[in-house]
C-alpha cells in the first residue's frame, strides 16, 4: 500500500512539473511585461527596467522558472501586483471556502447520481427508466448558475428556508455552514449527478450482460444477490473514474456558483485576476487545483484495487 502510494506520487511528478511550466509560461505569453502591467500604460522605460531587475525578470527564463518553482514549492506564489497581498495568504483564506462548495457539490452528485443510476438500470427499458433518462439528460443540460439563480430566488428569497446568499465558516457555526452550502451544493451537483447516474446505469447494464452474471444466475442465485454481490462491485470501477473527473469539474464549477450565491471563495478573486491580468493569483490557483487533482487521482487509483483484484496483484 505504502509502496503503491509512493509509486503513484512519483508518477504524478511529471504532471506537476508540466503544469508548473504552463503556469509559469503565463507571464511570458502575455502581451507586455509584468512590470508594464504593474506600472500602467505610459510608464517610463527606465522605471520598467528597474522593476524588471527588482522582480528578477531580466534573468534567463530557465533561472526565472527555477526561482519561481522553488518559491512555489515552499508555498510562496509571490505577491499580487494588484492588491499587494501575498498570493499564498489569499489562497489559504479563500481555498477552504471553495473546497467546501466543491465537496458539497460532490456529495449531492454522489447521493443523487448513484442510486438514480442503479434504479434506472434495474428498470431498463421500462417507463421509469425512460423517465429517468430524460431527467438525467436535462440534468446534463442545465447550466449550474441558472439553477443557482432559481434556487437562490425561489428557495432563498421567497421561502427563506435556506440562506440565499453568503457563507458561514464551519468554525463559526457548523449547522449554518451546512445550511449555507445546501443550495450551492445542489446547483453545482446536479450536472455531475446526471453524469454519474448515466455512467452507473450504463456500467451496471453492461456488467449485467457479462457471461459471469449468467453463471451466477445459472447457479440459482437470487436476483438481489446477483445484482449486489456479482454486478455492483464490477460496475463501480468506471464510476470511480468518472467521479475522479467530476472533482475537477466541481472545482471549476464552484468558481461560477460562488458568484451566484455571493460566497467569498477563490472565484471572485480569480475572475478579477483574469480581467485585471493579475497573473500570480492565476498561477497560484492553477497550481493548487493541479495538486488537488493529483491527490484525488491517487485516491481513485487506490480505490480500484478495492473493486478489481487484477489491479491489486500488479
Amino acid at each position, binding site marked *: 500500500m505504502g509502496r503503491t502510494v509512493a509509486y503513484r506520487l512519483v508518477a504524478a511528478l511529471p504532471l506537476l512539473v508540466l503544469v508548473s511550466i504552463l503556469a509559469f509560461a503565463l507571464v511570458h505569453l502575455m502581451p507586455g511585461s509584468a512590470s508594464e502591467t504593474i506600472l500602467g500604460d505610459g510608464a517610463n522605460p527606465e522605471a520598467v527596467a528597474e522593476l524588471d531587475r527588482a522582480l528578477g525578470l531580466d534573468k534567463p527564463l530557465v533561472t526565472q522558472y527555477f526561482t519561481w518553482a522553488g518559491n512555489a514549492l515552499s508555498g510562496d506564489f509571490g505577491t499580487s501586483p494588484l492588491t499587494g497581498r501575498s498570493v499564498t495568504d489569499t489562497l489559504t483564506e479563500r481555498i477552504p471556502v471553495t473546497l467546501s462548495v466543491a465537496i458539497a457539490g460532490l456529495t449531492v452528485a454522489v447521493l443523487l447520481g448513484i442510486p438514480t443510476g442503479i434504479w434506472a438500470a434495474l428498470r431498463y427499458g421500462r417507463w421509469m427508466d425512460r423517465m429517468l433518462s430524460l431527467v438525467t439528460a436535462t440534468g446534463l443540460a442545465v447550466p449550474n448558475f441558472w439553477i443557482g439563480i432559481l434556487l437562490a430566488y425561489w428557495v432563498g428569497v421567497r421561502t427563506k428556508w435556506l440562506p440565499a446568499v453568503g457563507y458561514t465558516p464551519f468554525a463559526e457555526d457548523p449547522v449554518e455552514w451546512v445550511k449555507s452550502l445546501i443550495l450551492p451544493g445542489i446547483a453545482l451537483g446536479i450536472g455531475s449527478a446526471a453524469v454519474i447516474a448515466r455512467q452507473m446505469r450504463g456500467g451496471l447494464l453492461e456488467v449485467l450482460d457479462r457471461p459471469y452474471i449468467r453463471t451466477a444466475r445459472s447457479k440459482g442465485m437470487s436476483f438481489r444477490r446477483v445484482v449486489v454481490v456479482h454486478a455492483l462491485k464490477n460496475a463501480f470501477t468506471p464510476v470511480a473514474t468518472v467521479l475522479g473527473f467530476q472533482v475537477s469539474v466541481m472545482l471549476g464549477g464552484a468558481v461560477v456558483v460562488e458568484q451566484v450565491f455571493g460566497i467569498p471563495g477563490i472565484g471572485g478573486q480569480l475572475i478579477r485576476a483574469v480581467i485585471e491580468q493579475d497573473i500570480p493569483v492565476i498561477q497560484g490557483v492553477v497550481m493548487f487545483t493541479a495538486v488537488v*487533482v493529483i491527490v484525488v487521482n491517487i485516491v481513485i487509483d487506490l480505490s480500484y484495487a478495492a473493486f478489481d483484484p487484477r489491479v491489486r496483484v500488479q
Partner: protein
Amino acid sequence: MTRRSVIRRLVRHPSGLIPASWLTLLVFAAVFGDWITPYDPNEADFLALFEGPSFRHPFGTDELGRDTLSRLIDATSVALLAGVQAVGIGLALGVPIGLAVGYLGGWWDRIAMRIVDAIFSLPGLILAFAIVAVLGPGITNAMFAVGFLFSLRFIRLTRGSVLSTREEPFIEAARLSGAPTIRVLRSYLLPNIAGPLIIQVSISFAAVLLIEAGLSFLGLGVQPPNATWGTMLREARLNQSQSGWLPWPPGLAITLTVLAFNTLGDRLRDVLAEDPASSPPVVPPAEFAPVRPAASVDSDTTGVSGEAFEAVYSLSDALLQVRHLDIEVPTAVGPALAVRDLSFDVSAGDVVALVGESGSGKTLSATAIAGLLPRQVNIVGRSSILFKGDELVGSTDDELRSIRGAHLSMIFQDPMSSLNPSLTIGYQLAEPLRSHLGMNKAQARDHAAELLSRVGIPNPRNRLADYPHQFSGGMAQRVMISIALAAEPDLLIADEPTTALDVTTQKQVLELLVQASEESGMAMLFITHDLGVVAEIADRAVVMYAGQAIETGEVFETFANPRHPYTRALLGSVPLVDKAQKKLVTIPGRVASPSDNSPGCRFVDRCSVSVARCSEAPPPLLSLPSAGRIVRCINPNGSPDGSPTVSSS
C-alpha cells in the same frame, strides 16, 4: 451506411426528430435574426420595465425595457457561432494530432498523451480562465481558449479510435496491399472513426454552449450591451429582486439547446450502432433466398406428422423433454424465429449432443432450457420444456432459481469471462453449496476444496483464495465445472465448453466431463459445432440446421448412416486427421436467416437432392424404426424419386 440513410434514420425517431427540428429553428433564427426580431434587441423602453409575458412582449421585458424575445433571437447567432468556432478549432487541432500520435505510437504517443492527460485532468474552466487572462476578455478569445481545450477531447478520441482500429487485420491487409501511410490514415482509419467523431462534435457543441454561457455570465465572454444567453442571465441575476421571471427565458434557451445537441449525439450513436460496420442496409443478396418480413409463424405449418412424432415421443419419461420449442429474436426486419419447432429428449445419465453450425440456434436452445435467455429474446408459440416433470416455460425466475444450480447446471464457452473477476474462486464455489445444500461457511470451504481437487486442480485449499485471472483457460474451465457440479445436478448443459481451449486441454476437459457424468449418473446436454467431439462423447445427437432439428438419433447409427442430406454433407466436409481424403464435400450457399419464412424445407437452396416438392411445403418429421431416428426430410434415403421410403437398416 450512406449519409442520407443516416439522416433518414436519425429523424425517424422522436429522439432524433425533436432536437433536429429545434436546432434547425435556431439556425434559422441565427441567420434571419435581424429580420424576424419584433423589436430592436438593444432598444430601451423605459415605459415598459420588467414586464411579464404579454401579447406585446411574449417573453416580457428586462430592466431597460428591452424585449426579451428579440434579445433571445439576437443571441442565437452568438451562441451558434461560438460553438462553430470552438468546435472547429478543436477538430482542426485535435484530429490530425490524434491520428498522428495514434498511428505512430511509441514515444510520440506516450509523451503527447502524458501532456494531454495532464491538461485534461485540470478543471477546464480554470484553464480557460488562464488563457483568457493572457489574451484578454472577449468572446473570440474565450472561444479560442475553449477550442484549444476541446482539441484535447478530439486528440483523445481520435487517438483511442486509431489505437483500437490500428490492430484490426484490415489495416495490416492495407499495408500488405502496398498502401502508403498517408493513404492508410486517410482511407482506412479516418472513415472508420468518423462515427465517434461526429457524435463527439454534437456533444462538444453542447459543452461549448454551457462554457460560453458560463464565461459570459461571469463577464469574461461577450461584453454588454450585446445579448447572449449568458449575459442575459447575468443581468437577470442582478435584477432578480425586481423580477423572478427574467432568468427563465435565457435559462430555458440554454438548457433546451444543450439538451438538443446531447440528445442528437445519443441518437446518432444509436443509429450508427445499429449497423456498426456503417454499411448500406442489407439488401437481399440475389444469389440467396429472399428475406421476407417476419409474419407470425404458425408452428403447425412446420408440419410434424403427428403419428410419426408420437411414435417416438409420446411415452417418454425422459429427464428433459423439449417439445415444439420456438424462440423469437429481434432482428432488423422485426422479430424472427431463430429456433423452430425443436423437440428432443435427454434421459437420465445420457449424453446428448446438440450439434450445428453458427446460426443453427443450438446455443439459444440451450440457454432457453436454463431460463437464461437474453433480454428481448423470448420463447413463443406452444413451446414446452419439461424437466423432471415440471414445466419450465412460463415459470417465474423464482421458480427456476430453485432448479438452476441444484438440479440443472450450465457451463459456457469462455471460462475466463464466465467467472466473476472480482470474487475469489472459493467464494464463487461456496455460493451454490451454501444456498442449495445449506452448508455453513466452514463446511462450504472444505467441500469447495474437495470439489476443486476432484476436477484435478492441484493444491486446491490454497487456490480457493485466488481470483479467476490467476488461472489458465483450461484450469478456469475446470473451476467452472466444479461450480456446476457442486450441488450434484441431474443435468449439465455444456455450451461449447472446449471451443476456446487447445486440443490437448480440450481432451482433458472432455475426459473430466465424461468421468463426472458416468460416476454420478448425471445427464449432459452438450452443445458443439465439432462433429469430432460429438463422436467422442455423445450417446445421441440432435443435428440442427437454421433453427430446426433436422436429424436426431443414436450417435453410432447417425454417423454410420446419416439420413438427412445436410448431415451427410456436413460429415463429408470435415477434414480428418487419421485418414487421407480426396476432396472435401462442400455445401453451397448460406444458411437461411431466421427471418426467412419460405414455405418449404429450410435446407432446400443448398440441398443436392432436392426436388420441386421440397420448396412447396415444410418437410415432415419422419420417425425411422431404428433406434429412435427422426429425420426432417421427405427423402431420408436420398432416393431420386423423393418418395418417403422408410426402411430399417
